[in-house]
């Protein structure tokens, strides 16, 4: 059996110390394999984003171990095999939507031609053609969110992490965005982890993990 893309063992993340310490993630043990599509579901403040950041190597656990045996060393995860669509405003302000979407390919050393071609395809997929030459401050929050998702999918990553990718969309729009994400990751064989509090979004994904109070209550055994 192939190595899992991500393997975590008893991972904890604590912010602060003493009586003001906040346990954002407690004793999380899980693994993610190629092709997995899963949703982390939980209310706001349950630790979904923290878990996502740990998986993306954007943060380090306070205890426990997290490895990426199927993706390579930690330093080489981004840009490349791991891509993240952040929850809030995460487009670079001085770059247009198109330039933002093609940026990960350029950061990974790809050619400008490949970056532009891939970006235009994804911009069309997420219905952003009309705003591709606009700056982030000139588009709506929903358009900015779709652009952030498109950016995460460019460069064909092997693991896509999306934090509340439909929070700024209406119901119909949320549905379209999720369909596009699932179709694209299905096409490339990438694993997908979506953090969401929306049951309708979670229902579109094949696996579901529940996160509550920092604890992961459902996971695929190691």
């Amino acid at each position, binding site marked *: 059996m192939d190595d899992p893309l991500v393997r975590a063992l008893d991972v904890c993340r604590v912010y602060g110390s003493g009586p003001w310490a906040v346990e954002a993630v407690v004793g999380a043990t899980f693994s993610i394999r190629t092709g997995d599509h899963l949703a982390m579901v939980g209310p706001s403040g349950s630790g979904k984003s923290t878990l996502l950041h740990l998986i993306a190597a954007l943060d380090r656990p306070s205890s426990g171990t997290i490895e990426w045996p199927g993706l390579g060393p930690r330093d080489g995860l981004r840009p490349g095999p791991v891509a993240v669509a952040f929850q809030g405003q995460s*487009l670079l302000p001085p770059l247009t939507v198109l330039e933002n979407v093609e940026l990960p390919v350029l950061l990974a050393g790809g050619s400008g031609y490949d970056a532009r071609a891939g970006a235009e395809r994804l911009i069309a997929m997420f219905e952003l053609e009309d705003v591709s030459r606009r700056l982030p401050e000139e588009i709506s929050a929903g358009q900015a969110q779709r652009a952030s998702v498109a950016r995460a999918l460019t460069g064909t990553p092997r693991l896509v992490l999306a934090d509340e990718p439909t929070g700024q969309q209406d119901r119909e729009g949320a549905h379209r965005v999720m369909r596009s994400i699932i179709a694209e990751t299905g096409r490339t064989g990438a694993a997908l982890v979506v953090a969401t509090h929306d049951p309708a979004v979670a229902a579109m994904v094949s696996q579901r993990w529940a996160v509550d109070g920092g604890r992961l209550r459902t996971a695929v055994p190691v």
Partner: protein
Amino acid sequence: MIARRWISGLLRRRRTRIVGAALGVALAVAIVASLGSFFAASKARMTSAAVASVPVDWQIELGRGSNTQSAERTIAAAPGIAAELPVGFADTTGFRAATGGSVQTTGPGMVLGLPPGYASTFPGEIRFLVGAHEGALLAQQTAANLRASVGTTIRVGRQGMPAADITVRGIVDLPDADSLFQVVGAQAGSGPTAPPDNVLLLPSSTWHRMFGPVARAHPDAVREQVHAQLARSLPQDPSAAFAQVSAMARNLEARLAGAGLVGDNLAARLDAARADALYAELLFLFLGIPAVVLACLITAVVGASGADRRRREQALLRVRGAAAGRLVRLAAAEALVVAGAGVIVGLAGAWAAGLLAFGAAGFTGATGQRLLWAGLAAAVGGGLAIAAIVLPARRDARTRSVRSATVTIGRRETPLWARLHLDAVLLLAGALVYWQVVKSGYQVVLAPEGLPTLSVNYVSFLAPLLLWIGSALFAWRLARWVLSRRHALASAARPLAHGLSGAVAASMSRQYRLLSRGLTIVALTAAFAVSTSVFNATFAAQARVDAQLTNGADVTATTAASAGLRSGTLTRVRGLPGVAAAEPMLHRFAYVGNDLQDLYGVDPATIGRATPMSNAFFANGDAAATLDRLASRPDAVLVSDETVHDFQLQPGDLLRLRLQFASDHAYHVVPFHYFGIVREFPTAPRDSFLVANASYVARATGSPAVQTLLIKTDGSPPVMANEVRRVLGPASGATVQDVVTQLRITLSGLTAIDLTGLNRLELAFAFILGAAATGVVLALGFSERRRTFAIASALGARRRQLAAFVWSEALLVSVGGIVIGVLTGWGLAYVIVKILTGVFDPPPDGLSIPWSYLVTLGVVVAGAIAAAATGTIRATERPAVEIFRDL
């Protein structure tokens, strides 16, 4: 309550912004307080130095036939008079002495009758050289003419009466002869008259005995003055002191009701000091104001670097219902904290600057002045904080929508000034004003004839002012143009950014406002540093030239005009190790009409070996051509502008001078021909003088005696001076002076002190401004875009790739700014040096470049840029989520 919470939050989460703005305010406050205190203190120094340099404040000439005792009582009782003594002046037909087996006679002269205690009351008037301090005292030049010494009996000629014999008890020098023998009540506009060549000082009792009868028979030959010293309670400002003294003099004349006329030496000296003060004011305007403005601009940029975030914060507050008034109050609270911290740090900085630069915290100024300037500086600091923080908040709250307030990049718009080409208009206007100043002959300090006032031609200040503003706008335009050329930017960024060059160029192009502002500030700072340091270097170079002129060469050996250096001295000096060249120069006196002038005899072909012959010495601006013309004809002579004007000379005109012949020590006519105008010459006085061929003068007068030796050395001038003294020996009577010692004397002059001090302050601030303009402004700009760098880091950007963004911007702003700034600074230095020609003595041929200072400044600036860039890159090494959380 809300304001307190707001400030507490800012101090915890926006510390960089608060500290940066406070430091900007501190810089402006420090500069204003330092320069202002220095400027005020320098005026007070000028006044006190002028007062201390006057031997006799007033010489009150008593009218013939007036009741002298009544007049003396009136003078003694006048307000402000601290001491007064009567002095008699009597014309003599000449002196005669039989010495060394021959009889020497002089021409007409003057005999002064001095009361007891005169020397102690007016110590600057008489310098005792040899012999007693009382009795008959002979002036040095007269003693030389008569070959008289202590104990010699001389015969004093008296008009209409037999001569009287008197025994010389001492030899003296009269350092202030020009004012001592001034014609009191001369017509305005009339030139100064030379002091008498032959002078004898007698005790007043002896004088009255000798010349009392002459006064009765020939009242025109005798007159009396009262010399007065005023109480030292004058205002510190030279202009105010001048006005007060002049008013006191007029008041005394009114009290005397025609019985006396006041020769106001003190007012004359204060008049020069107030001209110096006006020049100091000009220096403050030309060199000080740009420093203040630049500091304010940097403060504004520092304040503006937080404007976008501040605007977003206000937008959030407005969304949650905060009214415009509350937003303004919160901004005012922030401004208060920034201004308070900035003023305290700034005043401490000014205190330290005074201590470091002058050893006195307040630049030796009065407490009141220091407090005044501290208050002004604090007001400037407060105003800056309001302008940078409160006014934008007020404007945004009233005119901007919440949505527009969140815009940070914005689309490219051409501002109104650019559409109107204001930069070109201002540069052209500045050039026109400069041309006008050139046409007026650089008259910046105006002394209208017949008026007691002096004024500054402030219009001349417009030239550099318009050039400053025009250059700043042009730099901005140039930066915008460069930043609009994305393809060129991408190509330029490729060595650093490789595949990211397009993204880097796009990012830089869209942040044109931020980068244009930064580049312009760097350009202005570089222009300020270059213009100030070049002006300072040029002044220092001219001070050395002045010292060289005054001293004549690296080392100069001189004797009195009536004597000469021992034969063989030239050969012995040329043989000394370290002597690069030694040239002889004759120094004689010549009558031009009735005017006695110094005459210098040189070999035009070789004089330049020992001392530089500057083009500025000669009216035609060509030293080589003028000396060639002098050499082309043995009897050629160079004269002063005044002599040409007085005698209406044309080139080639015959000029009959009277020189003293060696055979009989009498003055005889020697023909010369006028061939050019000389304005400056090594060792020559500021008065009119003549330069001729030494061989012709020696032949005509029968004396080849050399009075001056000009020596150029490869080594240390003071060391060489000691060697020359050893060669000459103590009995030679020659004075040996070196240029290093002379430079020290030159730089102790009033304007020199103030200009040197002002420049020292400004050069120090230029370092701070340079570091602030580049490092701090860059760092704050990067700090405000931490989110951008955090996002890029979260996307996986490597350190090298983030560095490409950072360094591309840093290099554009710094290199572009420095290049434009250096060019602008050089141009400004040229204009300022030309306009302030009156400060230089002599006027410079060209600009001097202070390479070591500029290289050091470049290193400081490069260090600041590197610190800002590497600090920014290092900050992105924190986990991205931590940065997101902080933001």
